């Protein structure tokens, strides 16, 4: 194309330029719209479902329609079997306890594996294993969570003949370790080499400088990685569905079926009672706050570290 033909078609090219650049803006807006919609729905509808009982009570079956849950007496003027009139009762304390116990147990096992593997990836960058280990991290975090659930089911639930909280924790380890390892690696790489060299100039061997100088420097980042893994684990449903199964009672026994917030969301939204659907939105609210909070925190701390 010669310069002249270019000049001749410039108005057209300029229009194309503007149109396609506009398209990318529209695409970005399209992505933001569902995000805003989902977050506002969960915050508004879920926020309305929150009350004191929600956090302090466990599951209670909905009262038959037309009966006052407090007195047990029929309410006048209300039709029986009208599902939309069923009163909301009970809460999700069992889910909160289950999620915390299962996820924190998984985190306790994942942290040493993830952090030490992350240290290996960042501090010994030229071993032949590194690319492969990084790839394995990607495979684990890219593996469908249901597959991890199947592994937990086959490995533990099938052998022990019972669903259990500990099986859920073991399944979550598969999902948390890669997150922790990769964030640890990324954050350790941000520690300037001068820091390492300074420690070595003082006569510290490498392990000592890593543990007492490099890791403490990056500690905030490592903690945010752990929080990120926690948020991811707390939001996972599929692996827990196959390993801890869900439960309607408050249970602290890790060797028996337990409840978890995402499982309750899933079960309650399928329920025909609007009252239970309310509980589903409430649990979604709690999960959403957890995820948003952790992500904002991570955002703020990484911005500070990079600066």
């Amino acid at each position, binding site marked *: 194309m010669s310069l002249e033909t270019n000049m001749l078609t410039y108005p057209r090219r300029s229009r194309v330029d503007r149109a396609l650049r506009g398209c990318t803006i529209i695409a970005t807006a399209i992505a933001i719209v569902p995000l805003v919609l989902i977050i506002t729905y969960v915050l508004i509808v879920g926020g309305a479902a929150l009350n004191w009982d929600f956090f302090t009570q466990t599951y209670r079956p909905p009262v038959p329609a037309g009966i006052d849950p407090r007195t047990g007496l029929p309410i006048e003027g209300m039709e029986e079997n009208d599902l939309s009139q069923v009163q909301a009762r009970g809460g999700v304390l069992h889910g909160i306890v289950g999620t915390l116990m299962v996820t924190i147990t998984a985190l306790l096992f994942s942290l040493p594996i993830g952090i*030490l593997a992350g240290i*290996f990836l960042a501090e010994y960058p030229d071993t032949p294993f590194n690319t492969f*280990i990084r790839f394995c991290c990607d495979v*684990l975090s890219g593996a469908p969570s249901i597959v991890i659930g199947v592994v937990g089911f086959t490995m533990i639930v099938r052998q022990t003949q019972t669903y259990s909280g500990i099986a859920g924790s073991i399944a979550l380890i598969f999902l948390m370790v890669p997150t922790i390892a990769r964030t640890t690696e990324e954050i350790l790489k941000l520690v300037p080499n001068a820091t390492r060299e300074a420690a070595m100039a003082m006569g510290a061997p490498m392990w000592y400088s890593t543990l007492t100088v490099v890791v403490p420097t990056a500690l905030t980042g490592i903690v945010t990685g752990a929080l990120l893994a926690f948020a991811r684990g707390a939001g996972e449903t599929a692996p827990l569905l196959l390993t801890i199964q869900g439960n309607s009672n408050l249970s602290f026994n890790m060797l028996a079926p337990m409840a978890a917030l*995402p499982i309750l969301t899933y079960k309650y939204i399928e329920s025909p009672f609007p009252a239970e659907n309310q509980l589903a939105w409430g649990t979604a609210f709690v999960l959403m706050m957890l995820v948003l909070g952790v992500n904002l925190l991570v955002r703020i701390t990484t911005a500070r570290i990079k600066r």
Partner: protein
Amino acid sequence: MADVKAVPRITASSRWARRTRHGDVFFWLLTLFFALVIISLVVMVGVVTYNGSAEARAAYGWTFLWGEEWNPVETDLYPVSFGAWPAIRGTLLSSLIALILAAPTGVAIGIFLSELCPLRLRQPLGFLVELLAAIPSVIYGLWGVAVFANWFNDWIANPIANTAGQFVPWLAGPVAVSRGLAITGTILAIMILPTVSAITRDVLQAVPNHQREAMLSLGATRWEVIWGAVVPYARAGIVGGIMLGLGRALGETMAATMLIGNSTRIEESIFLPATTAAALIASELPNSVSLIHESSLIALALALFGITLILNLIARYLVWQTARGPAGEKV
């Protein structure tokens, strides 16, 4: 990164140094051990699903994958049979719909974030898009079931089924239940957008500036710079990002389980209930009726893992190849 492995020579007089002189080897082995644990986790996933699916593999072999009947319970009309085709077909079709919707949008977002966005907006917008990836999938399912399904029915499914559906069988109704491939694909598209756009943005940012400058100096418009010099340069990486998004869509469980309708019948229309491999496992494995049923579901998980493993392998290679910069130039 400079070589930090070199340990300074330890002076013999330092007792502390002598005591800790084996520390480095020990520390290296310790961290190596935990790094190898990660490899063993991957191996474990493969081995456990492979062994767990032994019965199904022995009974059906490869024909498992294209068997058209999935009947866990014996009835008068149908014998017990496990064929994965309804699940595999649903997985492929819903992911295809997701990909058709998300790939152009995601690439456009990546282009906007990397090339066109004002610098001040780049960080916050990128954060918002990545937040989409952080929302638990069960919340997508919840929102899809409770809010999006009605909307989708009124504004997309019904109008299409009533017009184009009259002539095109795979767009036909009835759309009464608002569960099916189309709505699942749409929600999956929202879920994989951040994967596609984040990787597109990253590989585009790795494109060296001379590419842009050379094109600009020829008198190109900004879009011509992007489309003629930047995107082709990063093509492999963008394809890799789309493949990673595809991997995520294939394995997505909760949103699919809640929205696809879990029907193992093969229907022609994309507005009718179907099932995906992940949804089938999630809904049937907790209450499987027989050993072969369980084993067949585990075989599905094995297939799913195999597919995502291969997709990851190719995609990571493509992204890595692009992000590392031009051949011969060390970045």
